[in-house]
């Protein structure tokens, strides 16, 4: 048996992972990226203060704009970044968060679903991925993904007769992800897809199911063992009873309904309060707990800024959540304008979720991956929105690292860079996709100019040695024997431009910075 060496190797690997996490938690990850604020961290009390106030010496430039775009939306084309810098921090954050729904892009995405009442699972997945790439309201989709990870429901246990519940789930994340947290939780609590996913259908007072009650607190609102008991779970499960569904043969649809007789009307004691409670009472009682506000604040800060945020920062944001009636947008706005958000500790400290990287690459390069290409790559990378592996969501951070997962990303990047046609409705090559728009403006463009331009677009900071390797690639070709031959990049040669820009894009997208967030 060749297993004798395994434990030692595993221990090494675990230790490496642990130290990496520790490094991230201790403020690593600020490498590169323009002009991060690194004259020591600001005092905790100032962390929620606005960033780049006049006289602060802080500035909102390209690096900051890309950081903002990556965290609350997706990586964007150069023109969008230029606009952010021109508009400044305040206007940019407001514009991103207050963007109206892009009804045109939504209609295009909806059209990918043939029968809206009886959607296919892959149709819904393709539709959302396509919307992420094409919408003019990207923060809405990004914050919906944020909540999808944290209130994770999969549609894979549904069928054509009830998959529309999964679209309702997606849309409640999109509608309330920057709306009201209480409403988000209330809607989730009687969403059909969630009820199927967490064993709430049917839920009868004779057999209350504890699954949702447990996850509602453990994963969604309070955190493991944070202020509730098994007794509370049993009581809350009773409050959640009453949902059922029936098959309607005429429409071939499964219909959700509340069956009053199956609901437990009795008195329950939940988190110290006693009454004849129903599901909305559970949400209300939960939000009256101080742990709920802290949990929300910590999730927002960890997702938008960095791991293990300072306790003072958490409690300040938690207080604002309560004072603001659980409105999420003002909290996100405050954080996205704060010094914490732009601190060296926050910058590039996260690993981008694979689909987020893919969508960002497609948007920034304006190479329009089509819905099925997006889905295939998302599947290959193990990150298909609407199909999380469990109620805990997907891996996070370095959980996305490893040889195979990173190769999957490299293949995705390569496919994006090679995107040279869009297809017609029959799947035949239709319009060609050019890459000339990815050249820097002006004449006399050199290989080095292209390297610098694309690195900037992908938010990659190159070491001098890396840059030299890439410039060398741009200025050489390979002969029949595979040996490099000097051939300086010629922007007037369309074939050379096509090959080299695509090649460079494929390589740059494999740079660690391109996989960070």
């Amino acid at each position, binding site marked *: 048996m060749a297993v004798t060496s395994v434990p030692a190797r595993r221990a090494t690997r675990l230790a490496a992972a642990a130290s990496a996490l520790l490094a*991230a938690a201790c403020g690593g990850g600020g490498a590169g990226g323009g002009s991060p604020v690194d004259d020591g961290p600001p005092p905790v009390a100032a962390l929620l203060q606005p960033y780049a106030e006049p006289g602060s010496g802080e500035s909102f430039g390209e690096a900051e704009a890309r950081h903002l775009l990556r965290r609350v939306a997706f990586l964007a084309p150069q023109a969008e970044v230029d606009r952010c810098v021109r508009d400044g921090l305040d206007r940019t954050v407001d514009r991103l968060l207050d963007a109206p729904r892009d009804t045109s892009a939504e209609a295009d995405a909806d059209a990918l679903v043939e029968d809206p009442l009886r959607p296919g699972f892959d149709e819904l997945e393709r539709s959302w991925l396509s919307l992420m790439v094409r919408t003019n309201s990207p923060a809405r989709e990004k914050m919906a993904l944020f909540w999808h990870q944290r209130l994770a429901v999969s549609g894979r246990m549904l069928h054509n007769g009830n998959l529309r519940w999964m679209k309702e789930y997606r849309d409640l994340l999109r509608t309330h992800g920057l709306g009201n947290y209480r409403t988000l939780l209330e809607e989730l609590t009687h969403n059909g897809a969630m009820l199927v996913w967490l064993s709430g259908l049917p839920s009868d007072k004779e057999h209350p199911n504890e699954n949702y009650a447990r*996850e509602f607190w453990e994963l969604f609102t309070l955190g493991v063992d944070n202020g509730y008991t098994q007794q509370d779970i049993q009581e809350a499960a009773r409050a959640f009873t009453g949902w059922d569904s029936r098959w309607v043969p005429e429409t071939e649809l499964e219909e959700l309904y509340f069956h009053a007789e199956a609901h437990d009307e009795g008195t329950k004691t939940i988190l110290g309060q006693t009454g004849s409670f129903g599901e909305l009472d559970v949400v209300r009682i939960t939000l009256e707990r101080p742990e709920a506000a802290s949990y929300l604040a910590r999730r927002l800060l960890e997702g938008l800024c960095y791991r293990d945020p300072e306790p003072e920062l958490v409690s300040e944001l938690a207080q604002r959540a309560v004072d603001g009636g659980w409105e999420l947008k003002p909290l996100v706005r405050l954080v996205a304008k704060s010094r914490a958000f732009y601190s060296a500790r926050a910058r590039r400290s996260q690993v981008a979720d694979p689909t987020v990287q893919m969508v960002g690459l497609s948007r920034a390069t304006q190479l329009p991956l089509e819905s099925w290409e997006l889905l295939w790559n998302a599947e290959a990378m193990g990150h298909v929105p609407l199909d999380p592996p469990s109620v805990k969501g997907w891996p996070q951070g370095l959980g996305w690292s490893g040889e195979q997962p990173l190769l*999957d990303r490299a293949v995705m990047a390569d496919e994006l860079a090679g995107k040279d046609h869009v297809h017609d409705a029959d799947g035949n090559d239709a319009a060609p996709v050019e890459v000339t728009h990815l050249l820097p403006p002006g004449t006399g463009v050199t290989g080095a100019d292209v390297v610098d331009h694309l690195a900037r677009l992908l938010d990659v900071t190159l070491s001098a040695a890396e840059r030299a390797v890439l410039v060398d690639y741009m200025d050489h070709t390979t002969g029949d024997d595979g040996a490099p031959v000097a051939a300086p990049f010629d922007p007037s040669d369309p074939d050379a431009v*096509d*090959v080299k820009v695509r090649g460079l894009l494929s390589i740059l997208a494999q740079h660690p910075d391109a996989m960070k967030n």
Partner: protein
Amino acid sequence: MDRTLSARGLSRRTLLSRLTLGLGSAALLPHLSARRALAAVGTKPTFLVVVNQFGGNDSMNTYVPYGLGAYHDARPRIGLADEEVLPIVPGEGLHPSLAPIHPLWAAGDLAVVRQTGYPDPNLSHFESADIWSRGVRDLGRTTDARGWIGRAADLHFPGALDVVGLGVGRRPDFVADVAKPLALDGLSSYGPGDRAVPWWELSHRDATARAMLAAGSVAETSPGKDLRRSLRNAYDLVDVVRQADEAYTSTVEYPDSSFAARLRDVAKLVRADLGGRIFYTGLGGWDTHADQAGWHAGLLSEVATSLDAFQRDLAAMGAWDRALVLVITEFGRRNYDNASSGTDHGHGQNVLALGGALHGGVYGPAYTASTITANEQIPGVVDFRAIYTNVLRAHLGVDPAGVFPETWSGDTEVPLF
């Protein structure tokens, strides 16, 4: 640009022989060197090959209780005649399309585990497949999203080449916390590389990406340095996999099918002594609701001819005694054929096990008339996890504890080893 000069037109061998950069690092790969040292002194590991018949194989027409009148009564349209069946034990035998692997029975290299399943049948493709993949019956009660192979890999097989899927994508079986099993479409096409560009450009990109990753700043911090290290290892793995493809020679001819090609890829990885412990492959098309007979016979023939070639190949390289092939599916089908001369979703199945060192024989309860008449489908008397548990402990040589979070009734292990 002219994309007619495509790498597709060149054999991988030609391409690699022309590459001047990027190769040669594999021998120094730290996580492989230990295995190679072991291989050098002759300690070669046992391994498992899971073959999944996606869609739900009609198990009752694969391992056939032909001696029972009830069998023939239940299947007037698709039942196999007594004289067609290849005998295993009195009254039970193999579908005639399995003739290529029938000799393994006499050699003691074939076992059948009858009436295998799990409690409380679930007739949905997805859910039943998920139960088999995750090794968990009550899916709703666990937040552990890992597959059974993923849990085993986290505990015992964390190396990059320890668990390898071929042509089956990212199996839910592989979902792990720590381990990252390999998912190959095929050995020769592994890794990034736009197949539409000329080979010299492909090799130039490949070399440039590797050189860029090798040229990072020493001051790089987490998570960047972790991602960089993993991706550099990944490129080394690509080399190892492609070299295994290049180095392989065999006199055994495989059938011309994608399933056979996947098994041959497994043989190539075994031949290269990379230490793989669990391989996973399979083929679809088994959801035979209508006009089943000819279609089913064709699929079984593809499985049997491919496995026969695989067996002879492994035997020739001296690896058959280390091998175990388990042929599974997400569920068997109904005992009764339907009016469309097909079968609908059922439950239990007869698992086939092939290997040079297993205890050949027939396990699980024998078929009786009431097995067929008292049930709509083959019952799942033997829990499938009892097979896996035995394989983990007695074949792969690891402690099965922690791999299956639930307990089950009946035997803890099926003594294949």
